[in-house]
């Protein structure tokens, strides 16, 4: 990444003039006249460009807002939820959504408040999503970096494994793995998901490493006596941060969706731990009580939608070939 040369000058007098596509004018042209006029040109790093592009991405901002609200409700579940997820209200069994007694999402067949259960379910889902995203990114990053940098048999084995994961009936394998290892605990389910999710990122990171290890600056670092670890993580890794962040964000959505499907089929998180998939499955036994199905499912849709918006915004923002700031 090339940092634009800082141009230290006096106080800003007027906003910097920009060319049509939003780029700061190149030095030598317009710049000189602004320098003479005593205008300041703030130097911006790539990250500040990315931040500005992200902040101006309307859908991404909308998604971020939605995520803050939904995940915030999950994090502070004990303050937000009017009831605990096991509390039974015998006066309101299978009550439709109502403000009476704060049963906003109605109650289930033994009188548990569904709004509270959904809020606690969000907490479970976000824990799974975030854990899987971090764990799988870390695995994908390390494995992809090693495979891309060293090549050879390490690379060969990695590519065969990713091929394997790609050509298998994914959900069936996950179900089988969950039936053996993951039943019940959300952390076990998360481990299984992370174990299947790292391959996508590993491929991307490998690709970047494969092309960048031939660059002059890597050669220069080698000539200067830098060790492999330093070159990999200090010199090449920063170039892969964009795809890693985007991939990690989208992995949150994919993990939440997959966890919900596993739990729905009865191979993921088990009651009493509230999970959105388990809640939807609970709705299946009472098809007449539509609220038992609609609200937890709608929550999943909203979370995934928001995460995908943020992911798309990040993808647009972190693409270094794109300097344009979206209006």
């Amino acid at each position: 990444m090339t940092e634009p040369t800082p141009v230290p000058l006096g106080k800003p007098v007027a906003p910097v003039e920009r060319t049509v596509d939003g780029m700061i004018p190149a030095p030598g042209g317009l710049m000189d006249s602004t320098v003479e006029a005593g205008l300041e040109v703030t130097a911006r790093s790539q990250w500040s460009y990315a931040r500005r592009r992200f902040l101006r991405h309307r859908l991404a901002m909308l998604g971020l807002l939605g995520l803050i609200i939904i995940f915030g409700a999950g994090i502070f579940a004990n303050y937000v939820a009017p009831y605990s997820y096991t509390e039974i209200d015998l006066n309101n069994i299978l009550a439709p959504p109502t403000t009476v007694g704060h049963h906003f999402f109605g109650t289930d067949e033994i009188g548990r408040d569904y709004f509270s259960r959904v809020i606690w379910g969000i907490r479970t889902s976000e824990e799974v999503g975030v854990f899987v995203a971090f764990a799988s990114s870390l695995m994908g990053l390390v494995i992809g970096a090693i495979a891309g940098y060293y090549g050879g048999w390490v690379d060969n084995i990695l590519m065969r494994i990713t091929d394997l994961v790609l050509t298998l009936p994914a959900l069936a394998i996950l179900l089988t793995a969950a039936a053996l290892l993951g039943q019940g605990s959300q952390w076990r389910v998360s481990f299984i998901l992370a174990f299947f999710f790292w391959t996508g990122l590993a491929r991307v990171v490998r690709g970047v490493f494969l092309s960048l290890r031939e660059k002059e600056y890597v050669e220069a670092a080698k000539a200067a006596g830098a060790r492999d670890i330093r070159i990999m993580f200090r010199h090449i890794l920063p170039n892969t941060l964009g795809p890693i962040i985007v991939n990690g964000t989208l992995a949150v959505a994919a993990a939440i969706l997959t966890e919900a499907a596993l739990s729905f089929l009865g191979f993921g998180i088990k009651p009493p731990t509230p999970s959105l998939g388990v809640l939807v499955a609970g709705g299946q036994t009472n098809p007449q009580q539509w609220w038992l199905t609609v609200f937890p499912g709608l929550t999943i849709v909203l979370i995934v939608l928001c995460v995908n918006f943020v992911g798309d915004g990040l993808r647009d923002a972190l693409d270094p070939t794109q300097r344009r700031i979206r209006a």
Partner: protein
Amino acid sequence: MLTFIARRFLYSIPVLIVSTFLSFTFVSLAGNPVALLRNNPRIPANTIHNIIIQNHLNRSIPVRYAFWVRDVFTHKLGNSLATLQPIWPDIARTSGHTAQVVVTAELLAILLGVAVGIFSAIRQYSPFDYIFTAFSFLGYAMPTFWLALLLQIVFVDIYLKWNVRIFYTAGLNNPHHGTWSIDRLQHIALPVMTLSIISFALYSRYMRASMLDVINSDYVRTARAKGLPEWRVIMRHVFRNALIPIVTVAALNLGGLLGGAIVTETVFTLDGMGYYFVQKLQAGDLYAVMAYLLVTSVVIILFNLIADVVYGYLDPRIRYD
């Protein structure tokens, strides 16, 4: 081309061996395969002992895997340990039903997805484009099982309220109706709808992106500069080239569709492979689960191979040698 097919075919054999061995190990460790028989008071202990000996359950997992592979080839996937019945008739019956649902859904999704993708690309940023963009975002975010349940709720409600049976919400068909009857159609309509809505989101997005890629290429500008009418440019120059990547997407989506079939068939209690798999997995029926994994893996690998061959045929820039 032939050497390419042969190479790909040979290459997928170790993939299959490794993947089946791993899942075999997984499932074998998952639980005691004769636990179900032990629970049955009518089966005496020495019968169970004989079953253990006959099925080599006292041997190590690699040995059992070898015996399983032999059974797959010589004995049509072998017998179930939980029911002691042959697995093949179940697989043959359920896979037909799943194929009917999945193929119908896939065709519907491709047809609609391609059509919508074309119009979205031609009229980029029009209200039509925005509506379907929003729709496909929703399709990406929608859990399959939730969509299936919503459809089920709606049609159960319609039936209970007005006593009109548009689509059935469970089962495969009523007695005395066959594979190609209106009755069957009424039964599989909702599973097909569920699967095709999810896949439609995917295809329409890919088709739109692929169309836009081609529309902005040089040879399309040339075609326009020659003065060809716009519909002809779109149909002859853009559409045909934009369709090529869809082949790969469709093949890769097959795995997702089979996963979706697991969920959808379970919701609609449809006698397909997915529902069979879930039931057998719950019962811990080792060899039935393995049969499902083997058959679906083979189908997915086969379709990926076909997609690669078709891709090479459609796109003359790609040569396999």
